[in-house]
């Protein structure tokens, strides 16, 4: 084997490896993103009866499902962050939900009601900690027309709207007041939320 020949073989090998790597990368990364997108649909969420029979039914009564103009929020719009890093973090946490699905922790209506407070508290905690990030994907203080709100709501939003206009940090976040707007409230939620500082 001449040195030039050897070099050519080496080059061929290297380029094959590179090509293989690229193709594998596309398949794996694409597959990863595809599975993220697939599991981020309402259809996927309500493929479990726990979600379909309980929370999904409750959602349908609310303004986030039915309203004048037909704009609509789906499960992941509120429960899965849009930004990549937070989304992946939430998806990893969701493996606990798979575990409990296998255990059947909430597989009957009664079990679901027993567990509802725990689940609600953890979701409220998450929303409070991230300043209701998922609400703010659609709702924005600066875009609120207080004139069009009912007087009570307008009064309560007013100071926060001005804070937002001035670029100040919010003193309260959406979930502080707007609990139970898309799902039913658990029994004894008020005391429990107060205790947890929510």
């Amino acid at each position, binding site marked *: 084997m001449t040195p030039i020949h050897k070099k050519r073989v080496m080059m061929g090998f290297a380029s094959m490896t590179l090509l293989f790597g690229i193709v594998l990368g596309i398949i794996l990364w694409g597959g990863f993103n595809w599975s993220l997108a697939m599991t981020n649909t309402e259809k996927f969420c309500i493929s479990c009866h726990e979600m379909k029979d309980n929370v999904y039914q409750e959602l349908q009564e609310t303004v986030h499902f039915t309203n004048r103009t037909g704009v609509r929020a789906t499960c992941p719009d509120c429960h899965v962050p849009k930004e990549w890093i937070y989304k992946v973090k939430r998806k990893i946490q969701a493996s606990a939900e798979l575990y409990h699905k296998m255990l059947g922790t909430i597989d009957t209506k009664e079990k679901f009601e027993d567990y509802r407070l725990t689940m609600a508290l953890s979701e409220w905690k998450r929303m409070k900690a991230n300043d209701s990030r998922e609400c703010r994907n659609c709702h924005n203080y600066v875009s609120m027309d207080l004139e069009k709100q009912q007087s009570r709501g307008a009064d309560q939003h007013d100071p926060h709207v001005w804070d937002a206009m001035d670029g100040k940090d919010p003193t309260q976040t959406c979930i502080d007041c707007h609990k*139970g707007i898309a799902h039913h409230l658990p029994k004894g939620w008020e005391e429990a939320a107060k205790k947890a500082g929510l």
Partner: protein
Amino acid sequence: MKKVILATVAGAVMMIQAPLAMSEEVASLRGDNNLDVEAQMFEKKKQVQVQGGIKRSWDLQPPSIPHDIEKDRVSLQENTCMRCHNKENHEKEKAPEIGETHYKDRDGKTLTKLSSRRYFCRQCHTPQADAPALVENTF
């Protein structure tokens, strides 16, 4: 004999007429439509919001609800009316607190929370629509 015939005829006439007369008096709310004809739809009305509340029509009338309650839910688990109308929040929410009687149980004892006999708000309190009365009312 004549009398008997007369009485029979009169009775027969009465028997035919009586139900006819009655059916004229008792008209159903859906009108004179046949069952296979769809009744005319009522115009849909939104629940109204009235600033400062709705005046009572008589002394002990349970106050009408001066806002819409479409989003409110009352169930075994939750009573969203009480988010604002309870002792703790009513001032902040500028909502009237539930009446004193609502804290009393059946033995007349005063409770710290809404009594379970008063739990179902809409048994007495109703939202209002700005619509003409369906049935004339002289009360």
